[in-house]
Structures are given as C-alpha cells and as structure tokens.
C-alpha cells in the first residue's frame, strides 16, 4: 500500500508550483478567478467553479451518492495530511491545465486519483466489502477494483 506520506512527498513539487504560481501571478490569478480558495472547502460547488467540472456536478446531482458523498468524500484522501496535499496538488494541476487549456476532453482520471477514489469507496464500505477483499494477495496483484463494476456511482456522464 502506498502510504499517505509517500503520496504526499510525490505531491511536493506540485505544492511548490502552487506557491510559486501564487507569487508569480499566473497560477494565482487562475486560483483567484476560479475562486481557488473554495477548492479547500467541502462544497461540490467549489469544484464546479470550473465549468469543466460542471458536467460531473450535474451528473453527481442525479447519482446514488448525491445525499451521502460529496466530491471531496471520493476524490480526496481522508487522512489529514494526504487531504491537503492532494487538494493542493490537484488544485495546482487543474489550475494550470485550465489556464493553459491543455487537458484531455472528456476528462480522464489519473491512476493516482483513481487509487484515492477507491480507497474512499472502501473507507465507507469497509464492512460490506471485507469478504470480497479478503482474497486479495500479493501473488495476484490486480485487486478487484471497485470502479470496474461501479463506474457510475458518483456520476454517470455518458
């Protein structure tokens, strides 16, 4: 398992980018206009500040999880350190991508972020899925990913 600390260290350059961005102005401008401070809050609207997130917001509003999980519940690690590191790294990456306009369309979740999400599935559904996760092992590394069957739970954009 990737420890939150290791994930955090991986995000350090990104934090630097945000800090640098803020001071240089470009990233800071985006962060400001896009109401970047709200990135750190738990309100789904904070994500939808960027219109490119709008589709996911409206799909989430129709999803089975609208009443039980916000964007952050799924997309941000829930240990304190990992949480802010991820937010900052995502925030920096998204701000930069948004400003430069260079990103895949439709959006594609990164492998790292998918792991974040799936840890969150298990965080909430730990007891229920304990049985199915009991046969995971190092020999057969690809675990039964949740998303390969439940891709639609957060938002079904299709």
């Amino acid at each position, binding site marked *: 398992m990737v420890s939150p600390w290791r994930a955090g260290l991986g995000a350090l350059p990104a934090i630097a980018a945000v800090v640098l961005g803020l001071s240089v102005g470009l990233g800071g401008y985006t962060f400001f206009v896009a109401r970047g401070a709200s990135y750190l809050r738990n309100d789904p609207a904070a994500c939808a500040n960027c219109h490119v997130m709008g589709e996911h917001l409206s799909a989430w509003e129709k999803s089975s999880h609208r009443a039980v999980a916000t964007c952050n519940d799924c997309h941000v690690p829930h240990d304190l350190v990992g949480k802010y590191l991820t937010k900052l790294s995502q925030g920096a990456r998204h701000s930069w991508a948004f400003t430069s306009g260079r990103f895949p369309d439709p959006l594609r979740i990164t492998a790292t972020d998918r792991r974040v999400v799936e840890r969150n599935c*298990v965080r909430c559904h*730990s007891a229920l899925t*304990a049985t199915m996760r009991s046969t995971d092992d190092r020999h057969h590394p690809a675990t039964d990913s949740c998303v390969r069957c439940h891709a639609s739970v957060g938002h079904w954009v299709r």
Partner: protein
Amino acid sequence: SDVTRKQDDALNPFYRVVELADTTTDPAIWGKNFPIQYDAYLRTVDMVRTRYGGSEAEPRTPTASDPRDTVSRSRLDANPRLRQMWAGYAFAKDFREERGHAFMLTDQEFTERQQVAKQPGTCINCHASTYAAMIRLGNGDLTKGFEVLNSKPYFETRKEVTHPVSCVDCHDPKTMQLRITRPAFMEGMRAYKASLGVKDYDPNRDATRQEMRSYVCGQCHVEYYFKGPEKRLTFPWANGLAADSILTFYQKDGHKDWTHAVSGAPVLKAQHPEFEMYNQGTHARAAVACADCHMPYTRVGAMKVSDHHVRSPMLNINRACQTCHKASEDEMRARVETIQSRTHTMAAVAMDAVLELTNDIAAAVRADSTLPAIARARDAQRQAQFLLDFVESENSMGFHAPQEAMRVLALSIEHTRRGQTLLRGGPAR
C-alpha cells in the same frame, strides 16, 4: 491490491469454526466456516430454462443401472441432425443439455456414452473433486497423481472420488485465495503462453486475481483430447486459443476422435470451449471474468459475497450485468437473444451444409472408392465439422464472442464449399 487490501487492520470477515486441511474435500466441512457460500453452492441442483441455456428437468424413473430421477433435455432429440454429424461416435447415442455443478458426477457416470465405449479415468478430471485424490495417488505429487488418474479405466477412478467439484478444487483453504489445481490447465497455459513468447508460465505464480476469476473455470470449460496411450488430458493450445488455431494444432498432430460412420472421414469432436471462445470476445479484452457474470457479488446481510450458485446469468441479469450495463433487464436479455439467435440460425445453415458434404463423400465412395479427391474431401469435412462443432458445443450460443463465433461458422461453410467442389472437379457437366 494496495488500494483495498487490509485497510481495516485485521481483515477477517469469517468466523472459522473448523480447521481446513489442504485436502479437505467434503464441502459440508468448509460450509461450517463459510455457510453463505456453501448454501449457494448447494443450489446448483436447481433447473431453470432460459431461451438457449439453463436446463430443464425431465423426470425419469430410476433404474438399477441409472439411479437418476431427473435428467436434462436431450439435445439429440432437439436437433436430430446431430446424430448424423456424430455418426459412429458415442455422442450420437446420448448428449444432453448441461446442468448445474451438483450433477456433474452422476451425469458423467450414467450417460449412455459410458455404455457404448470404454472411457478412461481421464474423464474424471473435470467431473469431480479430484484434488485430494491426485495428491493421495501421487503420494503428494500432484502431477504424478494426475497421471495415475488418467491411466486407469473410468470406473476404477470413479471409486477414488466422492464429490462434484468442491471448495478445495478452487480455493487455498488457508487464505481462501483462488488456486489452480488441474495439471492439464497448467500444461495447456504453459504451451499457450510459450506461443506468445512467455517462458515457463505458472498461473498459480503469475496470474492476477482477476485472471484467476476466469482461470479456475478454464480448468474444465475447455476443448480437450486424450493424448497418447497414457490418455493424458491435454488442452490443444500450443498454437493459440482461437478455433482455427486449435484446428491447426490438430491438423499438425493428426489426432482424430473417430472415423465418421457415413463418410469415413477422420473426424474430431469439439467440446465446451467456453474459455477459448470467451477469450476472443470484447468482455475478455475488457478483463471481465467468468465469475463476474456467473458468480456475481450478492449482498447477504452485511456482506458482499460471490454467488456460489453458478448458473446462467440470464437468470440473474440484475446482478450479473446491470452493475456494468445501465440498460433495462429486458433490453439486456434482448441483446443477448439477438446475438444468440443469429448464431443459432447460422449454425443450422452450416450444419445442413456439412451434412450435405458428408453424404456427398459417401456417394462418391459408393461410386468409386479409389477417387483421389475423396481423401481431400474427407479432410475438408473434418475441418468444417470441427469448426461448426466448436460453436455448436460452446455453451453460450455465441454470446461469449459474437463476431468470432460467426467468423468460425463462416470458415466452416467455406471448408464445406471447398470439399464439395473438390469432390466434383470442374463445373459444367
């Protein structure tokens, strides 16, 4: 694995009541630890029809020689042309729709195919819980035990086993992880992977968990033959898994299952190549496993378990398909049946064709048995018939790989065409 594994410190959802040894065969003992799985496992006695699958109970009066009180529908009666296609082979005597795992041992023991031919012990590999028997017969050496099993006559081997496929055949009792217990599958996969440039493949070492969710089924739901006088159970995969790759293997090897009673052709019988056909389909490409559809997760109380009532997904569309596919149940059934009815119709066309060729050869032999074209026409029949049988005996009626099943039928008709023109020489008489 790092995603979901062991987040909760001691991930041990089961309350172990009994200790299980590596060779504990009786599923009832496992059932003490895993009652939900065991209960579902027992339900494989249920018989329910779907349009092209499932099974239907035909009541019968038990006799001394066959104590079964139900059998499933005869496929020979449903499609009598099968008797012609298999003329001269035990299958023309008795061939039934397959049913749940609970029946595998009795159905094998009492099929009339046992009466028309002396079967080897090899048969037992896929119809019983053989793991403990192999370990015992091999004195701890699985492969050696496998060889002993193959070498005896069927009814002797029969005495070595008690249960249909059981927990021990699929699971490591310590961890409950899946494991491969069948040497024929290990050897088949090693040959197949070698053809792709992968050396010394060992599924128990090299497969992912997701692959294992199909491999455990691929130990039995596959095409096979008995190799050599030792009757070694062999999966013909050294050239690949597709129908024509397997045919190439048999063409090189020269193996034949029997001589066709009508045409004299040295023919082959294809049998339940679910694993091979599935591997040509979109679902396999997308890493969807047999267990995903045939043993879907089911919520039981506060647990999500794999449904050990292995059966047709058409009896469980909601769980088997609808987590991934958002269409309605009726729509999913309609998609499957559209695919299946196309396959069904074309298989009938290919069968009429190959039977025509069979009769043509017989007529040619009657007219002049020294005609050199006869040998080549017989070879064409052998190929056409094997390809058709590959689709016909594959139990999803094309669903596991819709385009591929149709491709194999097209190839079958093409071989028949070739055989018929060979036999007749040039046109215009």
